């Protein structure tokens, strides 16, 4: 779309000129802000990602470079409290370490969790209650071609019955094992995934970009087209879930999706991220996973 944008200019003038411009420090060097990501899943331990924002024109932002290692992260309920510990996991798809603060306690459905992050003398707090309904998938089918507001895709169609009562928000999750010959279907950055050998399998999680609500189909059977993120071959086996998100987290991920579109498409309005955490950027919330649903790709990706 950016090309189209420039083409219009070519039509309108003999000559257009493009040049890099700089900004004064006051405009763009926004103060360093804490960015917190924490989605709690029942029956799992907590993983909270805490990082620092960088001025817009800084170079590439890597998780290990911006990790807020001096932060103190405390997760508590009405019965217990624990300080989360620094930990990391190696992302074999992107070949990089991803640091986070991890907990030891198992997250439970029906509880309210309070997050407190202390960093450089300031405290940032948020709270979430895990009470959203668990909604199971009734089917997953392959679709070779479908259109949505993002364009044309291949992917899957998931079917489920919405929980009665309005205000439910869902997103798709697909877990699978794959090797480095499978690429990301959306190359937003040049991904260096040469740290594993072809054939060496590792797990990936694909979370859907679209947040869908039950605003117009409360309690109804729903069939939803889903764009998938990674390349596949016939026979690739996957496990599919439906995540049920709390309302504020759903709004945050919708912001992310819309901002992604505005970054890629000049015709889309800029989107601000609306934080769910007082004083800091980011999201703290919860998601309830459906039971797993097995799905095997019937063909290679087109």
């Amino acid at each position, binding site marked *: 779309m950016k090309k189209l944008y420039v083409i219009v200019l070519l039509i309108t003038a003999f000559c257009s000129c493009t040049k890099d411009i700089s900004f004064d420090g006051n*405009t763009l060097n926004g103060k360093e802000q804490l960015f917190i*990501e924490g*989605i709690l899943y029942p029956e799992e331990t907590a993983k909270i990602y805490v*990082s620092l924002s960088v001025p817009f024109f800084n170079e590439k932002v890597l998780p290990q470079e911006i990790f807020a290692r001096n932060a103190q992260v405390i997760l508590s309920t009405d019965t217990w409290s624990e300080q989360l510990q620094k930990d990391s996991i190696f992302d074999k798809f992107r070949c990089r370490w991803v640091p986070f603060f991890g907990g030891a306690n198992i997250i439970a459905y029906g509880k309210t969790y309070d997050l407190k992050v202390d960093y450089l003398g300031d405290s940032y707090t948020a709270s979430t209650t895990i009470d959203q309904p668990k909604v199971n998938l009734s089917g997953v089918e392959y679709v070779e071609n479908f259109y949505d507001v993002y364009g044309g895709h291949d992917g899957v169609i998931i079917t489920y019955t919405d929980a009665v009562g309005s205000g439910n928000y869902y997103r798709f999750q697909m877990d699978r094992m794959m090797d480095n010959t499978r690429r990301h279907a959306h190359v937003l950055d040049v991904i260096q995934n040469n740290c594993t050998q072809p054939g060496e399998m590792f797990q990936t999680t694909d979370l859907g*970009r679209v947040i869908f609500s039950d605003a117009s189909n409360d309690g109804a059977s729903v069939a939803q087209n889903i764009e998938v993120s990674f390349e596949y071959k016939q026979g690739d086996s996957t496990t599919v879930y439906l995540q049920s998100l709390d309302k504020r987290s759903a709004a945050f991920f919708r*912001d992310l999706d819309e901002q992604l579109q505005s970054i890629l498409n000049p015709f889309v309005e800029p989107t601000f991220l609306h934080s769910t955490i007082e004083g800091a950027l980011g999201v703290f919330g919860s998601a309830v996973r459906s039971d797993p649903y097995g799905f095997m790709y019937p063909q290679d990706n087109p």
Partner: protein
Amino acid sequence: MKSNLIILMLILNGLHAVSQNGTINGTISDAETGEFLIGANIYVTTIREGTTTNNYGFYSLTIRDRDSIGIQFSFLGYQTQIKKVLLTKNLRLNIELQPMSQSMDEVVVTAEARDKNVSQTQMGVLDIPPAKIKELPVILGEPDVLKVLQLLPGVQAGNEGTTGYFVRGGNADQNLILLDEAIIHNPNHLVGLVSAFNSRAINNVSLVKGGFPAQYGGRLSSILDISMREGNNKKFSGEGGIGLVSSQLTFEGPIKKDESSFIISGRRTYFDYLIKPFLSKKIKTNYVFYDLNAKVNYKLGENDRIFLSGFYGKDDAFYSQDNIEYNLLIDNKAATLRWNHLFGSKLFSNTSLIYSGFNQDITALQDNAFSSVLSGIEDLCAKYDLEYYPNQKHKIKLGGQYFHHTFRSTGDSQVFANTGQTPQVQSDSIPVKRFNEIALFVNDEVLLTDKFSFNAGIRVPGFFNGPTNYFRVEPRLSFRYGINPTTSVKAAYTMMNQFLHLIPSAAAAIPTDIWIPSSQKTKPQNSQQYAIGLFKNFDDNTFESSLELYYKTMDDQILFREGNQFIRSLDVDNLLVYGKGWSYGAEFFLKKSMGPLTGWAAYTLSWTNQKFPDLNFGFKFPFRHDRRHDLSLVANYELSKKWSLSGTFVISSGSAYTVPVGRTAVINGGTIFEGNYYIYEERNNARLNPFHRLNLAATYKKPRTLFGKKYDSEWVFGIYNVYSRQNPYFIYFDINPATEKPRARQVSLLPIIPSVSYNFKF
């Protein structure tokens, strides 16, 4: 409402009681062409009172003293005529004014009525003489009324090179553009580089930006009232021009001498041929624009005249390179049938039937991605206006207007299968929205004393769209207090409503005019404007000056909600967010209208902000086209009888746009979301670089002879953007492939562009 009518009847009765005196009425026209002069001045020297001709060249003046009186008739660019008449009964006085010619240089001529800007009640009105439009240097040598408009105080230009303009903080859709009373929805050619108005076919241009009289409505911020020429009813003549972008030809003449005439004027570009040498062979392109203006009028009798005018303009563009294809089709059309009738000597009526249409079809293909925007508007309008001149103290206008609007708008964006068949949006599949609009108005311009006058009016517009109906009442008030003959203070209050909305985009700079009507959710736009001004002339009317202060509120404004594309759904209301705007500022104007050096300086200091609960975290933010300082300098110098020089210089603060202040990495467990995201702290938090540009032109005029016949010729040499300033058009962000750092890229249009054009008139 009932009480208003009673007041009106009392006023009219009162007026009748003093209307037993003598009345002079008639028309003022050009002695060479017979065309009516709009806004010409009639001034009774013996009683120091006067009036001006209306939009049809008609005037009426009732004088209390039935004795010998002296009357002065004047108009810019014409020799003033003084008549002494014995007013023993009502008198019809049709005046023909002689235009100033090169041979008349020695004659001292007053260009305008003495201190007209000081003595008239209305404020916020700017008249642009067609002669001035042709004099000033503009892009590619093409005279352009909208470019001249952008040099006036309170009028701010949009993007570099475009004809869009913003008046007192209002959006571009808040400007009503009328050509012979017909609404022109898109006044552009060449994607906004050139206006759709052929300056050779224009008789009068008037911009109202505040203190709106009640006959005007339907837009919040300004009314641009353009009248087409009627054609020479005395002899056949023609004129033409060959320019860098386009050429034009105009013919006019009498159908029946002194009674009816015609004018036809056409213009066509050859921009497509000019651009080709600058493009690579891989690029195929074609850009054609043309327009046609035509008008006939016929005098049915002493009291009746009919006019039929039409306008058609079209842009047809095609661009193709590799796997990219771009098509643009825009057409504007308008037709007006008018009947002027005079009831006696004091009551003038105008009945108009008007059609206007606008269609836009923009289609883009890239690889197998397809995007299309279609927009169409058709308006049918009937208007009936009465102008009543009971005595020299009152000028009453009342009337009614009815509009029937038809809208068709849609957009589509998709990735299509590679079957060799390109998707198309079928125009007959676009849902049609129809709605009606009416307006009733009455306005009285009252001269209470020599020093104090006011203009009071009321307009009642209504909107009907199925179950959605809106009625509004709009009071209009203007006051003038004359401190002395060359100084006055004026104040005005106006309320305006607008039932149409142009969906604005914060991101895209290309033309995507999607108009929508008001609905249950999208309320009519509303504004209130307060203005006060000091008007002072110096040096025997050589210098005119004014300082106007204004404050304007704009409610029920629309913007796209964050993350929305400009079109994605037919149910557009759900993509919008609603808020308000407000603007305030000061406008300074200094004009020199006599002598070899003429011109003006216009400076505007203004602030425009908006507040939307669903945008910018609910905090106020600057309007996209908010420019703190805006200065225009315009000069024209008559070097000799043959040579004249002109120049314009503009400098203004950069307009606002949104820049992220930081980036953050979203991890979220290794998903499609993983990547770097932008942190925005405030909408429109940055400013484009200041805009400044100098244009110069030199004109060489010489009478010539061809085949024994004399004709006037004129060479115009121009330089646009003399020092090739790279003014910002827009800014976008991307990742530098070499360093992987984000970078901001500024796109500029229009470097230095020399031009030459040749005009002739016979």
